[in-house]
């Protein structure tokens, strides 16, 4: 977290032994810091480290945490930008952002619905094929991103196993719901794609 007070880090310990952070280097210089709560970090324990460092906007800063035995742990802030604080206007701004990213495109798509109805079966089949392709792409992309993020997480969390577990669970739940609603998971029969929703009897 970067603000006018300097840099604040949330640190979590991954080792089996408790870790004591004794000194901090930032950009290759020892710097004063405060730790809250102080003391050694037990396994998976967290603490907040505040460094009153005059960071430079848009530049890179490297932070090295040094333990009692002289082991070093590096963290790089690739591009320094202030961390946004919490306020009502900011909340509204992000809500608007959410609407524009999540709701508006769907709305825009729905505007084309009357036109889609005029397309024949083949046209719709083509569009659905496109959609399925897009969904398959999203599936691969999401998995890849999830696994990438997982490599950044602490080893103790077994993050990549978590990704696969979550994927498996979602598939299970989706499939379960699909069959519970009484429909074949293969989708509705092609003859009925004229816009009228199938409903269970």
């Amino acid at each position, binding site marked *: 977290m970067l603000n006018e*007070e300097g840099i604040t880090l949330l640190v979590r310990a991954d080792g089996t032994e408790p870790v004591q952070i004794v000194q901090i280097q930032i950009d290759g210089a020892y710097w004063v810091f405060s730790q809250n709560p102080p003391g050694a970090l037990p396994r998976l324990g967290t603490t907040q480290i505040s460094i*009153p460092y005059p960071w430079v906007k848009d530049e890179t800063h490297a932070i090295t945490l040094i333990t009692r035995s002289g*082991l070093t742990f590096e963290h790089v802030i690739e591009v320094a930008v202030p961390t946004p604080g919490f306020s009502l206007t900011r909340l509204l701004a992000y809500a608007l952002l959410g609407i524009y990213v999540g709701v508006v495109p769907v709305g825009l798509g729905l505007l084309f619905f009357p036109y889609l109805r005029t397309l024949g079966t083949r046209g719709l089949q083509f569009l659905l094929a496109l959609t399925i392709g897009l969904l398959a792409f999203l599936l691969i992309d999401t998995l890849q991103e999830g696994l990438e993020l997982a490599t950044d997480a602490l080893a103790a969390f077994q993050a990549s196993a978590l990704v696969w577990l979550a994927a498996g669970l979602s598939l299970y739940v989706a499939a379960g719901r699909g069959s519970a609603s009484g429909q074949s998971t293969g989708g509705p029969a092609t003859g009925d794609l004229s816009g009228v929703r199938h409903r269970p009897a």
Partner: protein
Amino acid sequence: MKPRKTNKSRRTLLRSSLLGSAGVLASQLAKPLAAAQTAIQAMQNEDAMTTVGDVDHARNGFDPYQILTDWDGGTVSTLPGGQRLREYNIAAVDKEIEIAPGLFFPAWTYNGRVPGPTLRATEGDRLRINFVNGGSHPHTIHFHGIHSAFMDGVAGVGRGSVQPGESFTYEFDAAPFGCHLYHCHAIPLKRHIHKGLYGGFIIDPDPAKHPQNVEIARSRLLGTPENARWQEFIMVMNGFDTNFDNENEVYAVNSIAHAYMKKPIRIERERPVRLYLLNLIEFDPLNSLHLHANFFDYYDHGTTLTPTLKTVDTVMQCQGQRGILEFSFAGFEPGIYVFHAHQSEFAELGWMSAFEVVA
């Protein structure tokens, strides 16, 4: 027709709100950037660039303020031929030392301290150094000076490595006069040095042998009234690679990062200052000393009585190089005068020091 109209109005609504709120959004997100930057400029914590806390010198068993001046003349006696004999006892000991507040380094030491004892003798003395290896690895003492091949203290040469539990006595005449050093020359060499096995070895000139420069020689000779005027300090520039990545995490003079910055070295303004400066750094090819607001004369290796560099404020030494700096604060305004490596990297990692000049 009706539904079409609805569509159109929906579209215009969407379009106008999209443009409008995009502007609001952009301005909102940009606002804190400027604010944080101006605040950072105002944040002036001038003594923030340092290590946090204090080193427990008592637990270390050595104090960087005492190391500055605790010359070890050994046990002095006279040999049958009239030559003065100095005997020293040095033991290699494994010891964990605190090199920066809270930061412990598994050092190998001579007599439990880094740097080891500062041996001080006079040109022409007979020196007998009884070395006991109480450490966990083979060690030696290699002196920079003039001696026989057998006394060279190098692994595989002469007496060679002294195994743990073994001992050996190095013996030779003190020559030439100057500011020298000793260090372990067991292999791997780099590790044996950077773990802490080194120390200062000063040979004062014998005034009788320098009729051209008797006064200068006397001022260098410990124990003379001429020498008592001087404020002499030994400064061993060193560093510690705490995570064994062949780069130093801590730089210092006499081992303790920022020690002389947090508590400056007291200097009496009217008395001249002489620094015995040694570079025992590993991994970095060079080290340096830069004195603020003053200039000094420099005697490379200390083996001459006239300066090898006159009126400089920065001097550079390669690994193992050393020399003598002479300067005076006479007539200066009392206050804090900083000195440090002019490699800013070293200064920021602990090699930052200061004199407190008092009237």
